[in-house]
């Protein structure tokens, strides 16, 4: 079975996000970019399935600017076998990415897609779900455990009330939650192998996908500064404040 893992290039989680002075977006010039952490978890899970003999090939795919190659190399340094770059300078929104991924899935015919549940830049939490819908495949989002047995998928997912277990036929789409696994560091031998692994470059046009943004960004603003906290003297006082000041209980 082949596993396809979409990986997104995002502003590194350590970087303090700065809004552009004109409010048109977030400053990404000279900012350190990395693989979306949820996608790292997805890559890790795919590699583990390969190591367990469940999967035969792990293909990483990234959509966006030419520098997304770095993200693909990082996935390959972790152990992905090859990369696909769908290259475009157009701002990509979740639906466009889902359509691009659908086209790549049709080309590659993977048995499983493992994506991050969301990307830490826009936190949209949509791409995996849209992809499953477009493909007509079953989906299991926010996975915290994945087991594949006899062509069937058992996924434990984190929901508000606790854990839910789903059984799905393959092919399917999974999105990863934080506790699914702890991604490995790229080892030096794998970093060296990564440079020899192939990256295919495609374009939205070649895939026949229209990626024109459907949503317009009106304005990007800093969130309001957090006010200083207060120390409460007792549990009673806390309850009183939550009830009468914050009015949340």
């Amino acid at each position, binding site marked *: 079975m082949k596993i396809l893992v979409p990986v997104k290039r995002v502003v590194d989680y350590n970087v303090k996000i700065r809004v552009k002075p004109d409010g048109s977006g977030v400053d990404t010039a000279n900012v350190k970019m990395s693989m979306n952490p949820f996608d790292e978890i997805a890559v890790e899970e795919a590699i583990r399935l390969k190591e367990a003999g469940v999967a035969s090939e792990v293909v990483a795919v990234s959509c966006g600017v030419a520098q997304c190659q*770095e993200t693909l*190399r990082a996935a390959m340094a972790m152990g992905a076998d090859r990369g696909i770059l769908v290259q475009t300078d157009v701002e990509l929104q979740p639906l466009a990415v889902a359509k691009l991924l659908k086209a790549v899935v049709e080309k590659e015919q993977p048995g499983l897609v493992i994506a991050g549940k969301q990307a830490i830049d826009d936190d949209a939490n949509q791409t995996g779900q849209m992809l499953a819908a477009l493909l007509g495949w079953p989906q299991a989002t926010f996975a915290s455990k994945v087991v594949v047995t006899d062509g069937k998928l058992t996924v434990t997912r984190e929901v508000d009330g606790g854990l839910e277990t789903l059984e799905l036929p393959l092919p399917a789409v999974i999105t990863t939650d934080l506790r699914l696994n702890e991604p490995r560091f790229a080892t*030096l031998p794998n970093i060296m192998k990564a440079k020899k692994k192939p990256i295919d470059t495609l374009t939205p046009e070649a895939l026949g996908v229209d990626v024109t943004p459907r949503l317009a960004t009106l304005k990007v603003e800093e969130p309001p500064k957090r006010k200083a906290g207060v120390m409460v003297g007792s549990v009673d006082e806390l309850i009183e404040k939550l009830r009468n000041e914050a009015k949340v209980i």
Partner: protein
Amino acid sequence: MDFTLTEEQRMIYEYGNRIAERFDHAYWRTYAEKAELPQELFQQLAEDGFLGLMVPEEYGGSGLGMMEMLLLIEGLANNGVPLLNLVVGPTMTMGLLAKHGSEEVKRRFLPPGCRGELKYCFAITEPNAGSNTMEITTYARPDGKGGFLLSGQKVFITDADVADYALVVTRTKPRQEVQKKTDGFTLFMVDLKQKGVSKTLIPIAFPLPETQWQLFFDDVPLSRDDVVGEVDAGFRILFDTLNPERITLAGLCAGIGRFALKRAVEYANERRVFNNTPIGAYQGIQHPLAIAHTEIELASLMARKAAWVFDEVLPAGEYSNMAKYAAAEAAIHAVDHTIQCFGGNGFTKEYGVYDLYGLVRLLRTAPINREMILNYLAEHVLGLPRSY
């Protein structure tokens, strides 16, 4: 000319960022305060294949060069994880063995070194020969059976407790018996668990995970198989370990400097003393930080040039020395200004910025002091007469 790192180099450089998610500065500091090797971190580096970075693939390594080792060490230090350990073992000892060891020496020491099963340190300094290596008196005399008996004393040997073997610089001919003062040096791999070897700790005044030792050799038996390079001609290869030391320590200094500056900037952006203005707005705070940043990036560039020159097998002394000099000075300035920026908090254990000062200050004095570097540059590069 192209200043961009290759994909591979970039990933090696960024390895420090990744590993710092698990082994961060606070982790390093815990071990520095205990003066204890961070074993789990070392194990992780071994498992991830970084100890053998400079070792050819046939001996279990990755066959990369000085540049990549510099990037690894600098990348770790960027995150507040400076490891002298990687300098004395994987760089100085394993790098030299890979370059100049006999087939037998390479087979014996490199594969277990890459796996982290054997650890190495480097011993040249003696009580009466620090700046003046020519004066070393540690002597390996012929035992009459084709081998040697080693006697003498070394000081300040980093990691001599955790290391299994030391790469020891000795004389096999006393200075008064050789025509040229650089003749008669021999390098040996000495088993530190062997009879005749003893050691005492030299406690160091600032937090550091690696410990320093005096080593005593009392008729330690050595064989020809323990020689690295050629008998009596050790001096010729000595700088293939001393230049890498200077280059990697330059990177380490640049990394600590960047780490300190990052903390200074964070603090200066938040701390408000007068009129609700962040102290970072004052030029008295910002200019020294901007200058330190410039000095660090310049020194880091010179370290990369030195690494490149070394990898090209060109004479690397001038660049290695300039890089080490500049990086130590830059790091001292960076840490000093960071401390200043933190006000009284700069001196507390809680904020931990003063902790960084000892290490960068050390690197003005060791492994080669600022004055000897300037002597070298003045005499050998500029062509000025020698005064000493």
